[in-house]
């Protein structure tokens, strides 16, 4: 039995390269970010003052920030439902097909390969040119909306594009889970006289619950940080109508008054939100593991 000390030393040697890049490029910046959140640094000046929790107190009465939090929550809620139902629906449909499974799967996953910046610009073309063309020339007047400009429709557009980017990924996870459902169970249930709907709810659904919770939390986590889609589609507009928390932080740090310290305070709050979600997630998962 070697001593603990030796073991630890040995461990550190092997972990060192990973630890080094990790501390240099992640932990240290994160810690100093936390420090800046307690200063009034504007990102340019060479000097700044330590102002304690003032930034966090200001935050409480910052209506634009809370407005962006509300928008983000709305976005998260809608994405949770729409993206997951669509993805699960597609996965179940594909799985039930005798043929062409691979083809469909390939097609649906395609958008995930492309950067959302690129995807966002492609959709911008659709919203700026194509839909109007259809409205003007094909008489599809329901398409004649201000897809990016109107507050309501801008939200729908963002969901359309975000779902476009997320469904493929979620579908892959659901598909993997569905393939793991033992065929014997399904057969047994249909022998018992259950119809397709009943057998889905009684047999399939319980066995894909772990995948469901993975997908739900993945959506939660990524949706809370949404930036790319909003940035490339509406830029947060009209006004601040579609400004997400990440965009609000970005604006605070780089536009207008350039309050970098204040912006890091905001991102600390975002981090705490994500931390809470994850804590809940871990608890739910563990509970399920115990059962």
């Amino acid at each position, binding site marked *: 039995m070697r001593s603990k000390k030796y073991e630890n030393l040995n*461990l550190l040697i092997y972990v060192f390269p990973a630890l080094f*890049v990790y501390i240099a*490029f992640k932990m240290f*910046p994160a810690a100093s970010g936390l420090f*800046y959140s307690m200063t009034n640094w504007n990102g340019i000046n060479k000097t700044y003052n330590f102002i304690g929790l003032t930034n966090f107190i200001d935050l409480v009465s910052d209506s634009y920030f809370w407005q962006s939090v509300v928008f983000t929550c709305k976005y998260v809620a809608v994405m949770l439902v729409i993206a997951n139902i669509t993805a699960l*629906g597609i996965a179940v*449909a594909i799985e039930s097909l005798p043929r062409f499974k691979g083809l469909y799967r390939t097609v649906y996953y395609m958008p995930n390969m492309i950067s959302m910046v690129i995807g966002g610009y*492609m959709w911008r*073309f659709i919203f700026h040119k194509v839909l109007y063309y259809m409205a003007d020339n094909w008489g599809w007047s329901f398409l004649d909306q201000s897809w990016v400009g109107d507050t309501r429709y801008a939200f729908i557009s963002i969901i359309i594009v975000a779902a476009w980017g997320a469904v493929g990924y979620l579908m892959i996870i659901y598909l993997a889970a569905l393939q793991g459902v033992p065929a014997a169970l399904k057969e047994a249930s249909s022998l018992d006289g259950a119809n397709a709907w009943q057998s889905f709810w009684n047999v399939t659904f319980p066995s894909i619950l772990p995948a469901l919770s993975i997908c739900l939390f993945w959506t939660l986590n990524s949706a809370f940080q949404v930036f790319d889609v909003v940035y490339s589609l509406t830029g947060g507009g009209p006004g601040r109508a579609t400004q997400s928390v990440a965009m609000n932080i970005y604006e605070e740090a780089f536009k207008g008054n350039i309050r970098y310290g204040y912006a890091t305070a905001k991102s600390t709050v975002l981090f705490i939100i*994500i931390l809470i979600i994850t804590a809940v997630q871990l608890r739910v998962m563990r509970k399920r593991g115990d059962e």
Partner: protein
Amino acid sequence: MKTGKRTYLIIINTFLILAGIYTLFPLLLALSNSFKTNGELLGNVVSLPKQLHFENYIRTLEKMNYLSTLGNTVFTAGISVFIMVLFSGVAGWKLCRTKTKLSNFLYSMFVFSMLIPFSSIMIPLYKVILGFRIENSLLGLSFVYSGLGVSMALFLYHGFVKGIPLELEEAASIDGCRPLQIFFLIVFPLLRPITATICITNILWVWNDFLLPLIVLSDNKKYTLLLSTNTLFGQYSSDWTAILSALILAALPVIVFYAVFQKHIIKGIADGAVKG
């Protein structure tokens, strides 16, 4: 029963085809319009191009410095993932095999930090980058990526190593293998499935990442594909044919990559998600 089955298939296929149209709609429209002249595009955006105008592409290829930016992107993605796999593989294995308080602490620290949003570390990270004098360096950028991605990779390796029986390593150790030999000759080959997953997810991440190269690389010669595409938007914001051809060119390499490694990619993504 049989007709019931058929109607069911028709309904399901219709649903799937509609979803497929939604998926491919922007890609196909971008593709078809990128071959038109500007006048043709403004006249009719949904028709197929009357004639394939490759001029847009030739112009965009030149404006984007396509080959060199593509090379930059491949280099960055490749080196980042190589470093990440090497560092986190060794570390994840050793962390899993060592049962001390320190190993527990380090492991939890790595896992915990997976939650830190990028936006909160952006500016301090840039200061670190300047401190190392690796701004405008693709190799430096790769190290930054490996630092950002190492915790996730380590987490996956750690989980996977748990499932490898310790006896194998012990046997090798008795045969006189040194620890690193054990890792590279015995453990690492067994980690192949999870390594594939890590490579695929991270290559895609680095390839499609926009914000980090945007702040690190300001020298046009070092630009990655997304950056040079973005620059083009600024210059041709009213010329959709130029923009669309640039979008297609930017998406092309990943689409080809996808076409070739489709099975592995989808499997890798599913594994990564389920274990992550």
